[in-house]
């Protein structure tokens, strides 16, 4: 059968799925023929992105040698399926083995690229670097750029700023990737202490004319980074311009407003500083910039000698921080109860598996606002993927446990039925004397041969004809016929006539009758051969069935404990994974709480200082 399936196309689809929507395989290499239905069946699940069932079917088909026509393709497909399923270590084993062979170089580079990406996301830094180092120059342009970006990220993360800078400075063009590269270059320059050089890069980026949301966000980020770098470098006036370029409603606006305030405060223009800080007052207290502004405002007011107002603001801040800490404590309790992870999966049908899955929305609830930024972190997302995959595995094992229980019952029922039927079948077989029947058939053949050779037409007479022949013979021997009277002669003539007619008819029909009888005997012989074959099958079945029952029983009963053990391990790992996710989330909340604690202490300290000052002023007045 012809199908537009090509393993190269399939793999390309697999390996670009994370980058762009799956596209029809129109421009790929020549189609191949699906020669094994089981291979086509794997593709059926693969094209639906149901990677788990696709892998199971592929493994089963390989085990049964059902993919003889697609051996190499199947192995490559399995690697791709493993990769898509997030089973990256097994995928790498296959690819490392296969990619050494004569595999399309583009496939090879795509594979290394995606392995590098998965490994970086999952914290397999050395492996990721090794995969990137294996790339040749056969990646499509967009993937090649992303690979360069991954490489620069690896350099930055490992503190190799000079290498990152060298790599990023070579970046040419004005694409979206070029903007990201520029930003990363700025980051690497800042971290390596080249603030002035970084400022030029970030300033250029912060002034770009964005054509989409991502670039707008990148521009804000660059302006924010530049503004704070300048602030830190003691250039508050220069810092204001980039900070004021940040959108007022974007995700970085709070920090920008805070920074603008600090730039003014640095030059002791506290009145101007209050403007952006007051704007922050009504915003979400979850943001550290908003929290900090609650201390910055009274700080500026105190500088402006509005001591009473400053005290009020400090009191408000202490109260707000206290309430926020209580809410965080409540959220920590909720996370530690584990319910939140059940809610994550409650609306998730688990009908798709794989590395491409991401949790985009948190379950509704007061806790969600504290956890949204966690979704942006690879560690949490990848951990959640693992948690979800483990949940799927647990579910899968649950279903198999039920099925295996049913199979055990089914097997026992079959065995019982077999044992009940066996004596009856044996008795029936004993009654049926097949060998005797064959002997009789052979005797019959021999008899027919004799009849044919001796032209014994009477032997093929019907019962009625034979009786008639006997009656005629009896009449011939009647004593009265030998009496010398005319009537006797007349009767003898009639008897002779009858005998002659009968003989003539028997001789006439002899060949026809012989042919019919031989045909019937031949059919009987064929039926006997068929019966003998069936008998051999029955004998085989009777001999093999107990062995088959034994084999199936040992597999069914052997798989039961294997299932139980596996389910236990999955359950334990699920709990560990949940605990890990809890520790990330709780750790994050504890950090927020700690920051609020510090702010509270600072507010109390400042308040005490104000009260002391007021008391001192009062005493001096008296």
């Amino acid at each position, binding site marked *: 059968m012809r*199908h537009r399936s090509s393993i190269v196309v399939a793999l390309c689809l697999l390996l670009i799925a994370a980058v762009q929507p799956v596209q*029809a395989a129109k421009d790929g290499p020549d189609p191949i023929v699906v020669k094994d*239905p089981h291979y*086509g*069946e794997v*593709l*059926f*699940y*693969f*094209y*639906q992105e149901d990677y*788990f069932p696709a*892998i*199971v079917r592929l*493994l*089963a088909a390989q085990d*049964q040698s059902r993919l003889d026509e697609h051996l190499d393709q199947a192995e490559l497909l399995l690697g791709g399926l493993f990769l898509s399923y997030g*089973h*990256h270590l097994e995928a790498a084993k296959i690819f490392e083995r296969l990619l050494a062979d004569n595999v399309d170089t583009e496939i090879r580079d795509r594979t290394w690229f995606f392995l590098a990406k998965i490994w970086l996301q999952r*914290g*397999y830094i050395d492996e990721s670097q090794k995969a990137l180092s294996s790339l040749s120059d056969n990646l499509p342009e967009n993937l090649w750029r*992303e690979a360069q*970006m991954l490489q620069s*990220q690896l350099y*930055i993360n490992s503190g190799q700023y000079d290498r990152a800078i060298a790599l990023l400075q070579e970046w040419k063009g004005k694409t979206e990737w070029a903007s*990201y590269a520029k*930003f990363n270059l700025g*980051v690497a320059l800042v*971290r390596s202490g080249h603030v002035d050089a970084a400022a030029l890069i970030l300033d250029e980026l912060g002034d770009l004319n964005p054509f989409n949301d991502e670039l707008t*966000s*990148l521009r804000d980020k660059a302006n924010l980074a530049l503004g*704070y770098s300048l602030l830190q470098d003691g250039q508050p006036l220069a810092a204001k311009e980039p900070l004021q370029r940040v959108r007022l409603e974007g995700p970085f606006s709070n*920090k920008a407003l*805070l920074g603008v305030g600090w730039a003014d405060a640095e030059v002791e223009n506290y009145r101007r500083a209050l403007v952006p800080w007051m704007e922050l007052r009504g915003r979400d207290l979850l943001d*550290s*910039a908003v929290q*900090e502004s609650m201390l910055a405002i009274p*700080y500026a007011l105190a500088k402006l000698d509005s001591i009473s107002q400053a005290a009020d603001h400090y009191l408000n801040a202490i109260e707000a921080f206290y309430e926020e800490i209580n809410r965080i404590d409540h959220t920590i309790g909720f996370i530690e109860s584990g319910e939140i992870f059940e809610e994550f999966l409650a609306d998730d049908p688990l009908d798709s598996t794989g590395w491409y899955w991401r949790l985009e929305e948190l379950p509704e609830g007061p806790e969600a606002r504290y956890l949204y930024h966690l979704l942006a*972190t690879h*560690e949490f997302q990848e*951990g959640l993927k*693992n948690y979800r*995959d483990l949940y799927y*595995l647990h579910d899968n094992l649950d279903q*198999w446990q039920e*099925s*295996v229980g049913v199979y055990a019952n089914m*097997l026992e029922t079959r065995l019982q039925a077999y044992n009940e039927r066996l004596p009856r079948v044996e008795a029936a077989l004993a009654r049926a004397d097949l060998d005797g029947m064959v002997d009789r058939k052979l005797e019959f053949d021999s008899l027919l041969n004799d009849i044919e050779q001796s032209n014994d037409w009477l032997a093929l007479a019907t019962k009625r004809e034979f009786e008639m022949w006997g009656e005629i013979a009896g009449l011939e021997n009647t004593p009265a016929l030998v009496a010398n009277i005319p009537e006797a002669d007349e009767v003898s003539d009639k008897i002779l006539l009858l005998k002659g007619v009968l003989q003539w008819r028997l001789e006439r029909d002899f060949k026809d009758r012989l042919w019919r009888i031989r045909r019937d005997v031949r059919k009987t012989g064929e039926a006997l051969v068929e019966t003998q074959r069936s008998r051999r099958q029955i004998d085989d079945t009777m001999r093999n069935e107990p062995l088959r029952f034994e084999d*199936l029983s040992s597999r*069914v009963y052997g*798989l039961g404990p294997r*299932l139980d053990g*596996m389910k236990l391990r*999955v359950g334990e*790992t699920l709990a*560990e994974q949940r605990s890990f996710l809890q520790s*990330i989330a709780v750790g994050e909340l504890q950090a927020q709480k700690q*920051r609020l604690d510090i702010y509270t202490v600072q507010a109390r*300290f400042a308040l005490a*200082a104000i009260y002391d000052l007021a008391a001192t002023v009062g005493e001096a007045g008296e």
Partner: protein
Amino acid sequence: MSKRLLISLVVSMLLALNVPSIAQETAPMDAAAAEAESRGEFRSLDEDVQDLKKQVLDLNRDLFLLEEELLFPANSQVAFFISMDVGEYFELDSVNLKIDGKEVANYLYTEREAGALVRGGVHRVHMANLKTGDHELIAVFTGTGPHVRDYRRGATVTFNKGIGAKYMELEITDRVKKQQPEFEIKEWE
């Protein structure tokens, strides 16, 4: 309260901000050790999950084969597969199968499944245990045909079941000359 203290807190935010925008946010420098520990813990757990995935997949393979052998022994097994070649003139909605006059399968395809067929997937729509000898298969395909019209077509075949597993292919192809779909049932080549 000193201005510097507040600025120092802001700087910590700055460090968290200075990251490649396409990549994971990097923690502040003073948290590097904690991050490394967390990464180590993640990796250790991830390796456990990888190992479990492998073992559960192997177990699923064994269970899948056991189920097949138990429910459909090779001697009596007949599998019916649906495939599509091109699929320009027909969008498949459902397939109905009758073996020896008895309805055995009535499968309704989702859009995702039909798409997978068009792209070259082969769906095992039914498995049966049949005695050796001749059997009649009737397949009725329902869907949308040329000019977006409801389309219902049947195909019949008599096939002989011998000893050993048998695979039948129900193939939907395009007859370009007539601009019509064609439905064929044949033994898998």
